[in-house]
């Protein structure tokens, strides 16, 4: 990707970050739509031999020759279609390759984001130009194609995870998700548990179902669940109306510009006979009404890029794509084929107001190229799925956020940048958005950490990423949520935004072992069979004499669910106290850490002891946090932060309180 390495501080700290030889021993397995191996992001120049421990292969297909495709960067490529074909029938090879080849682009984008080699002069149609690189340029990539035109099937995903671990992947990256279900029914959760048990870090996307509450995917505590934020880069486009007013949107349009003199402007809802014509659905616009005009379409239902094709096919000269309340001010840039820009809800409403009041409305759109240094950034993307965790409310999710809006990375040669069949363009790179894009940032960073600290467990890697994440801007003020324009909460960003240079040296970590997670499953009252399904440990039974509690899981964040007093007026002043126990492991120099808490008005937080001294690396010290609160109306939420600091390191954990 371009810009995100700088945004994450990977370039500034180049001299400070040790280039570890062991990083090149890490293989990031990416379960996705496959790979377009000819992209320069998979160039293996400068990489040593493939690690001797690697057992993966490059599977062949009609259009995928191992000798051409795999090398010392792309060390493995497999495809898993048996489950898909069992349900959907044989793959139509005129539409998609029965091989690891990526006909979609998504898998090429995610795998190059995680661990692509550096590619100078990368850009999409001139936008976002720079040197594109993965988060770990020295790690290797193995792709496991599990997603097809009809979706990604769990039998294939589980088979791919099975093989990826057998092959020797050290990190798995899954930018996909399903519905919310118990862990023993969720193949990704099961695969991730046993991958974790074998020392593999598993990073998954949180989902794009935001900004509604409890919309997360992949919430098992042994998974690193990644939400999406913006970076400090934008692609502005300017709408100039006939009345002289200007509105700023975003666009990746790169063709012939519109004339500087305004063109007639029409609302799609007034250029159709269909009730949903305002959405610019296929076949709904009347050519005689839109020909030669700029058409304002409302966002929603069909793909944003498809609306551009609908307007173009109806003879429109350009398009303004207006957000509605569902998307607010979130602007996602698209590489439309016709001059087009997306605008936020407020600008959309203002343009509509002009359009409906002026008897002869006109507009033009000018394109501003790439701007960097945009502030504030990051902000949490509106689409990023939000907590609370619907499966286990006592585990705070997402875990953290990373760049996931307007991300440039490598792309398939099968489709154009809009992904639409009607798009004849072919580009080396594309700019797209989603938690699919933020997840491989974290996967690549996990590989980076593994290289620097090969002895760290998956729990330690995750802890380092989380406890060093930042929740405030450097100048002060909490990271904003674009959905509300207000500061985001841990239900939006978890521990905060990833900060890789700090994650390299976290000072302390909350380590987690397989036994800790087995205790967690006991605390969920899972049956022996259910625990065995998740963990493959059919001889494990929970100890009837032991009091298991989810609050004892050594998680790097805290979610406390208080029960609301029952009955009308129900004794609302009764105070409830909940205790969580945690253990910190020193991964730095000897030192003394002191706890500080920023607690909300609604809760009292006490840490015991409030000071921990570590005499050696590897030493463990435990503490207890007591959370006390009076009853609040059901649905109340409040937030805080607990930090341990030795003056050099800050080991931070978000606190999330709910009353149900």
């Amino acid at each position, binding site marked *: 990707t371009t810009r995100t390495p700088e945004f994450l501080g990977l370039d500034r700290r180049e001299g400070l970050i040790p280039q570890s030889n062991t990083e090149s021993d890490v293989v990031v397995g990416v379960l*996705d*739509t496959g790979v377009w191996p000819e992209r320069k992001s998979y160039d293996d120049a400068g990489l040593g031999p493939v690690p001797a421990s690697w057992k993966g292969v490059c599977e062949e297909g009609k259009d995928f020759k191992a000798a051409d495709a795999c090398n010392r960067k792309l060390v493995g490529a497999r495809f898993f279609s*048996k*489950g898909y074909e*069992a*349900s959907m029938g044989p793959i139509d090879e005129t539409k998609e390759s029965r091989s690891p080849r990526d006909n979609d682009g*998504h898998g090429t984008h995610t795998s190059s984001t995680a661990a692509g080699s550096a590619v100078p002069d990368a850009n999409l149609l001139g936008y976002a130009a720079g040197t594109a690189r993965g988060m770990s340029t020295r790690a290797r990539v193995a792709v496991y194609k599990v*997603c097809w035109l009809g*979706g*990604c*099937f*769990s*039998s*294939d*995903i*589980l*088979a791919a*995870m*099975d*093989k990826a*671990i*057998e092959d020797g992947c050290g990190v798995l990256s899954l*930018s*996909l*998700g*399903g*519905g919310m*279900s118990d862990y*023993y*029914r*969720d*193949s*990704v959760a*099961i*695969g*991730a*548990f*046993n*991958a974790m048990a*074998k020392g593999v870090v598993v990073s998954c*996307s*949180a*989902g*794009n179902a935001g900004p509604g509450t409890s919309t997360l*995917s992949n919430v098992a505590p042994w998974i690193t669940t990644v939400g999406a934020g913006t970076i400090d880069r934008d692609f502005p486009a300017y709408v100039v109306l006939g009345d002289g007013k200007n509105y700023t949107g975003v666009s990746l349009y790169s063709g012939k510009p519109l004339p500087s003199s305004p063109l007639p402007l029409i609302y799609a809802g007034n250029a159709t006979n269909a009730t949903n014509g305002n959405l610019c659905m296929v076949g709904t616009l009347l050519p005689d009404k839109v020909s030669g005009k700029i058409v304002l379409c409302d966002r929603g239902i069909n793909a944003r890029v498809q609306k551009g094709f609908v307007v173009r096919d109806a003879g429109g000269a350009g398009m303004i794509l207006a957000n509605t309340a569902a998307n607010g001010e979130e602007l996602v840039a698209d590489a439309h084929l016709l001059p087009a820009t997306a605008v936020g809800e407020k600008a959309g409403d203002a343009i509509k107001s002009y359009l409906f009041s002026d008897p002869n409305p006109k507009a033009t759109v000018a394109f501003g190229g790439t701007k960097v240094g945009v502030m504030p950034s990051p902000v949490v993307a509106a689409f990023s799925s939000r907590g609370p965790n619907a499966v286990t409310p006592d585990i705070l999710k997402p875990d953290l956020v990373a760049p996931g809006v307007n991300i440039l990375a490598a792309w398939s040669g099968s489709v154009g940048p809009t992904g639409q069949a009607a798009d004849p363009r072919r580009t080396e790179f594309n700019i797209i958005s*989603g*938690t*699919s894009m933020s*997840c491989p940032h974290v996967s690549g960073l996990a590989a980076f950490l593994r290289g620097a600290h090969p002895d760290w467990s998956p729990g330690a890697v995750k802890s380092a990423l989380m406890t060093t994440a930042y929740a405030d801007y450097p100048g002060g003020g909490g990271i904003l949520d674009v959905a509300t324009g207000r500061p985001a909460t841990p239900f939006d960003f978890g521990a905060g935004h990833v900060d890789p240079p700090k994650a390299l040296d976290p000072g302390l970590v909350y380590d987690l072992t397989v036994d800790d997670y087995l205790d967690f499953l006991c605390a969920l009252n899972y049956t022996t*069979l*259910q625990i*065995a*399904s998740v963990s*493959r440990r*059919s*001889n494990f039974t929970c100890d009837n004499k032991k009091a298991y509690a989810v609050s004892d899981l050594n998680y790097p964040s805290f979610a406390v669910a208080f029960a609301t007093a029952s009955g009308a007026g129900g004794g609302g002043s009764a105070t409830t106290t909940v205790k969580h126990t945690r253990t910190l492991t020193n991964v730095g120099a000897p030192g003394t850490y002191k706890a500080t808490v920023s607690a909300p008005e609604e809760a009292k937080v006490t840490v015991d002891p409030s000071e921990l001294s570590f005499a050696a690396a590897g030493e463990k010290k435990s503490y207890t946090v007591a959370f006390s609160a009076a009853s609040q109306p059901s649905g109340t939420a409040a937030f805080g932060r607990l930090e341990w600091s030795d003056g050099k390191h800050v080991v931070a954990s978000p606190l999330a309180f709910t009353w149900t």
Partner: protein
Amino acid sequence: AVAKKRTYIVHMAKSQMPPAFTEHRHWYDASLRSVSDAAEIIYAYDTVAHGFSARLSPAEARALEHRPGVLGVVPEERYELH
């Protein structure tokens, strides 16, 4: 009944394989065969799960749940890219 068939993932307790079997795959096959003459294993899992996937009718899936060594029979889910 064929039309109603869908893919299930069957989780097995590998340690409970009867001594008559030398290969887990054979045990999985025999377990599957005990509830369906026609069903075939799509995948056998061994590294991050123990078990297999197969196309089954709901009745066959329920019957399989009661076989020795079967931990759970879970319908396949479709996941989406994010």
